[in-house]
């Protein structure tokens, strides 16, 4: 078992929480893990990314080689494309569709989505909207993780356990809101997956 994951977004959008939850889940399953993150300068409204590697075997490099990532998980649509050189031919791209617009030359949304949908394996999800529907508007990052979870080789329950451990400090309510968000994202992808496999048959 091995999952090489690129997480992407804009500083402050919570990709490190995604990494922390997956990390906890990996530990629970006695997997090896390496996770390279970006701190410092690029946190301030700039593009941020993290390389997350999980494996049954010892992991060598903290960085994923080009063209080898199994999945890109992005909390922002334009950022999902920035790391395309890392995605493997059969890799999945799972992204939030709510843009974070803090630059003047942000691309046209329709063109952006069209570009994402060119990829053979992609999931686009309006995570902000879904997070609001399940009444955890601040947990859109967990919605995205939920949507990506069917493509990560870790039992779903371990991700929930990961949320419990990571958010324990912030109280039960926050834990539950994040689990609800994760679940909603998961359901979205499961549905979409069955639809597309049916369609292709």
């Amino acid at each position, binding site marked *: 078992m091995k999952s090489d994951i690129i997480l992407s977004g804009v500083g402050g959008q919570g990709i490190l929480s995604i990494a922390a939850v997956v990390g906890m889940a990996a530990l629970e399953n006695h997997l090896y893990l390496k996770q390279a993150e970006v*701190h*410092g300068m690029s946190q301030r409204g*700039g593009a941020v990314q993290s390389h997350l590697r999980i494996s049954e075997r010892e992991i060598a490099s903290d960085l994923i080689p080009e063209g080898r990532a199994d999945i890109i998980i992005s909390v922002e649509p334009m950022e999902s*494309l920035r790391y395309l050189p890392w*995605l493997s031919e059969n890799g999945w791209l799972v992204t939030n569709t709510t843009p974070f617009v803090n*630059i003047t030359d942000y691309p046209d949304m329709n063109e952006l989505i069209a570009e994402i949908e060119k990829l053979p394996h992609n999931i686009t999800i309006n995570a902000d909207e879904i997070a609001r529907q399940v009444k955890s508007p601040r947990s859109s990052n967990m919605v995205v993780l939920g949507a990506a979870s069917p493509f990560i080789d870790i039992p779903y329950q371990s991700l929930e356990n990961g949320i419990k451990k990571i958010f324990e400090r912030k109280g039960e309510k926050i834990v539950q809101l994040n689990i609800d968000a994760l679940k909603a994202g998961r359901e979205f992808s499961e549905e979409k997956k069955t639809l597309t496999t049916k369609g292709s048959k």
Partner: protein
Amino acid sequence: MEKLLLLGAEAIAQGAIDGGMSGVYAYPGTPSTEITEYVQHNKTATERKLHSQWSANEKTAMEAGLGMSYAGKRTMVCMKHVGLNVAADAFINSAITGVNGGLIVAVADDPSMHSSQNEQDSRFFGKFAMIPIFEPASQQEAYDMAYEGFELSEKLKIPIMMRITTRLAHSRAGIETRPLKQEKKLSYPEDPIQFVLLPSNARKRYKGLLGLQSLMEQEAERSAFNTYYPARNKSIGIIACGIAFNYLMENYPDRKFPHPVLQLGQYPLPFVKVEKLVNECEQVLVLEDGYPLVEEMLKGYLDKNSKIKGRLDGTIPRDGELNPDIVARSLGLEVKIGKPVPSIVANRPPELCAGCSHRDIYNALNETMKEFGKQKVFSDIGCYTLGALPPWNSINSCVDMGASITMAKGAADAGVHPAIAVIGDSTFTHSGMTALLDCVYENTPVTVIISDNGTTGMTGGQASHATGRLEEICIGLGVKPEHVRTLTPLPKYHDEMVSVLREEMLYEGVSVVIPRRECIQTLSRSKKEVKVKMEEAVK
């Protein structure tokens, strides 16, 4: 045994705590900050009351660390690579004085300049000081080296350098810890003049340091961190320093290397091992993240057609961070080429936060400067350096901490008027105070804007030594009280800010303007903490 999931920087901290450290001294700087922050929040460290408060700068940190070592206790000093420039005087001389309690100097380099002004390689400083250097390949090694480092330091009676790079500092992995050691008891150096570097004694001590070199080499020779992997195919041999070893392993899973490999984690170079590799292989590829230190040593100066490959002969790019693909290419291995980044993806540079006080001061400064002309604003390092980018384009320099004030002084001496400095509060107490004193000494006409957000913002919001004492410091240094002006940087006070700035720029002497408003990141964090506490109280 349960593993701890730690950043490389945190692994160093945990290793030092478990290794019996009594205190850490540091000034924040990416990617070294997390070492000290980890100690500040660690349970054992808190119970043991280990010293972990921030120092004013890297030099004061290095000196305080040396003082704790003098008193027989195990100490660590941490900084980013450019911080070692600031601490260099104390650092180089600490190799001559030697230590009493074990002393580790942990320095984090930033190849590719993810958040730095340069990518200098601290191993050169370690070599320059003639002390042993550890360079871990993994988080586990980072832990182990910190854990064992104090003992090596005490055995040799010399400080030890621990050199890491951004990638290791900011990458997390599981590590196994070892039994917690006792702290050392207070003790004085056996020789009461060990630390007195009067020439007569310094000459003796320097000879002692020179005499220790062969012992350091023997230590490196038998170090478990320097491993020789024999292999049949001797068309090329590989020396992989520190984290470069991981990128090599990525290309040869399970350490099945077809060529002889020397994994290097402890310096000075282990001569016997290096010589063996060089002699038995037709060519030698040196993989090192940073400057070509080992490569240059092996290549020598005149040997232009040498069989040594690396950054100097173009086998590997001369600058920037290594990665698994660069290493693969240097060995002629196949790499995958991923899809290109679609052209519609726009750049997203870092920016000042919405609501940041630096924004308001730059708006006011830009308006004031309409009257005085362009290219007269010297600045410094911190969040406010982003004022160099659009839409502000307000500043014309960022060199090293504190340089804004001294550069403005030099420019004023050359006839630039008004000469303006923009500096942050933490940067000011780091290195700006002596610069201001130079201005006061000559009553140089400069306008120094200390943009005070009450924190060390750029590195994540550490406490700032300046908080609550800026006016006193400036007046104490000799700035006339009527020319120390405090402002509230908010859009509604824009006109007032412009008029105060204008007045002080017209003044033919030293003035300090202090726009003061809390960093909105620390503000929202403390609000959240209050909220959590209140919710807990309600339960």
